[in-house]
C-alpha cells in the first residue's frame, strides 16, 4: 500500500510539476496567467496523433515535431496577441481562455470530438517493489527527472537563467541591468510552452486524446502553482508532489471517494491559502 502510494505520487507528481513549472515560470517572468498552457499540452497530443496517423511518422519523431510545432505556435500567439494586452492580468487571462477555446474548436473541426489515442513508445510493464508500472510511466518519470535537472541547470548555471530569475523577481530592475524584458518573456514563453508540449507528448500515450482534455489538468495545475506559490519554481515542484500524494492517498484509502480527489486537492489549496495567502513559497507581488 505505502509503496503503491509512493510510486503513484512520484509519477503523477512529476507530470504535474512539469506542467506547473512552465506555467509558474511564465507567471514569474512575464506576469502572464496562461490559461492556454494546458491547451498547448492538448495540441501536442493532437500533433502526435496527426504525425503518427496521417504522416506515418515514428512516434519519437512525431513527439519531436509536436514539441517544436507547439513551441512555435506558443511564441506566435505570444507575439501576435498576448504581448499586446499582457499589461492587465484580467485581460491576459481572458485572452488565453479565448486562445484555448480557439485551439479546442479547431481541433474539433479537424479531428472531431471523439476519443483518439497514440501508441506508447515501449509497450509492457515492469514490477517495482511489487507494483506494476508501465514502461511508459517509467519513461515519463525518467524524462521528467531529466527535464527537471536541465531546468535547474538552465536557471542556475546559465546567463539566460540568471536573466530569467532576475526578471521573475523584479522586472523593472532587471530592465535596468540591460535585460530585454520582453525578449526574456518571449524566451520564457517558448520554454514554458515547450514544456507543456513535452508533458503532452510524454503523458498522452497512456490516456486518451480529445479536444477537451486540457480542462482537467488545467485546474489541477493551477492548484499546484497557487499552492506552491505563484512564480516559485521550487514551490511548483513541491506543490505538485503534495497534490500527487493527496490524490494517491485518496485513491488507496478511500476508493469509493476517488472521484473526490480533485475536490480534496482544491480544498487543501484553499486551506493553505487562507493560512498563507501567497502560497508556500510565493513571491509577494504586492509592490506592483
Amino acid at each position: 500500500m505505502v509503496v503503491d502510494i509512493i510510486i503513484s505520487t512520484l509519477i503523477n507528481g512529476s507530470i504535474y510539476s512539469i506542467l506547473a513549472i512552465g506555467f509558474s515560470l511564465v507567471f514569474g517572468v512575464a506576469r502572464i496567467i496562461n490559461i492556454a498552457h494546458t491547451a498547448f499540452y492538448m495540441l501536442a497530443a493532437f500533433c502526435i496523433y496527426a504525425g503518427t496517423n496521417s504522416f506515418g511518422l515514428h512516434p519519437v519523431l512525431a513527439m519531436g515535431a509536436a514539441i517544436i510545432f507547439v513551441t512555435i505556435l506558443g511564441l506566435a500567439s505570444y507575439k501576435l496577441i498576448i504581448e499586446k494586452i499582457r499589461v492587465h492580468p484580467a485581460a491576459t487571462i481572458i485572452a488565453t481562455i479565448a486562445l484555448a477555446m480557439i485551439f479546442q474548436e479547431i481541433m474539433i473541426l479537424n479531428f472531431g470530438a471523439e476519443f483518439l489515442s497514440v501508441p506508447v513508445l515501449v509497450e509492457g510493464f515492469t514490477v517495482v517493489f511489487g507494483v506494476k508500472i508501465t514502461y511508459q510511466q517509467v519513461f515519463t518519470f525518467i524524462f521528467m527527472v531529466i527535464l527537471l535537472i536541465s531546468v535547474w541547470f538552465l536557471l542556475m548555471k546559465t546567463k539566460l537563467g540568471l536573466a530569467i530569475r532576475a526578471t521573475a523577481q523584479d522586472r523593472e530592475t532587471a530592465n535596468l541591468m540591460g535585460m530585454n524584458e520582453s525578449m526574456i518573456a518571449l524566451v520564457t514563453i517558448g520554454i514554458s510552452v515547450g514544456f507543456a508540449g513535452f508533458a503532452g507528448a510524454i503523458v498522452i500515450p497512456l490516456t486518451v486524446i480529445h479536444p477537451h482534455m486540457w480542462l482537467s489538468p488545467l485546474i489541477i495545475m493551477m492548484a499546484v502553482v497557487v499552492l506552491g506559490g505563484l512564480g516559485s519554481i521550487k514551490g511548483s515542484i513541491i506543490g505538485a508532489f503534495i497534490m500527487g500524494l493527496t490524490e494517491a492517498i485518496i485513491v488507496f484509502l478511500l476508493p469509493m471517494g476517488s472521484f473526490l480527489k480533485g475536490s480534496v486537492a482544491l480544498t487543501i489549496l484553499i486551506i493553505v491559502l487562507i493560512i498563507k495567502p501567497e502560497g508556500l513559497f510565493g513571491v509577494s507581488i504586492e509592490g506592483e
Partner: protein
Amino acid sequence: MQLEVINLRVVFNKAMILNDINLSLNKGELVGLVGPNGAGKSTALKAISGLIAWRKKVSKGIIGGDITIDGLIVFNGERIDEMPAHKIVSNGLVLCPERRKPFREMTVLDNLLAGAFLERKKVKIKENLDIVYQLFPKLKSRTRQISGTLSGGEQQMLGIGRALMSQPRLLCIDEPSIGLAPIVRAEVFEKIMEINKRGISILLVEQEISTVFKMTSRNYVISSGQIITEGTSEKLLNDNVIRKTYLGM
C-alpha cells in the same frame, strides 16, 4: 555635454509630474538633483533611464492609467528618449534605483552577475567584479549570501556595485541614503565620491542636502515638477530665498 534633457514632461493620467524639465551634465561631473518629497526627482531619473516609457507600455489596459511622456533626452549625442531601457543601459547610462531593489532571492554574486548581463567577455566580468569587491570589501565576504538577508547599507552597496558591473559612463543614483544609519550613509557617500573619481559621471538624487552639497559641482533644485534653479552649491546656499523655501535650511 554628456547628458542633456530638454523640455521633459511626464503626465500620469492628468497629473503633471514633470513640467518642462531642462538639465545637463558634463563628462566626469557629479551633479545633484535635490528637492522636497514628491517633487519629481525619482520620476526624472526614471524618465531618463527609460523606465517611464517602459511603464507606459506596461500599464495601459482594461482599467489602467494613461501616461504621457514628452521631450528630448540626449546622451552622448544620441537621442535616448525613445529607446527601451535595456538599450539605454548598453549605451552606458545606468540607474541605481531607489530603495536599492536587490534581487532578494538571489545571492550577492548572482546579483552582481546580473548587473554584468550585457558584458559577454568572462575576463572583463571578472575584472569588473574585482573592482567592485575592491570598492566594497564587505560584499566579497558575503558572496554566497542571499541578498534579501543583507543589511540596508550592504544592500545599498550591492545596488551600487551591481550598477557598476554594467560599466556605466553615467551613473544615476536614486536616494542612496534612504533608511540608512548616519555612519553607513557617510560610507556610502564616500564610495560615491570614489566612483566619481574613477571618471564615471554621477547624477545623484538626494534629500540629504547638506552632505550632497559638499560633494557636487553643480546642483539642480526641483519642486513640483519644475526646475526652480541650478548652480554650484555655494551659489545656492547663498541664495536665501532658495535656501529657505526649497532646501529647508
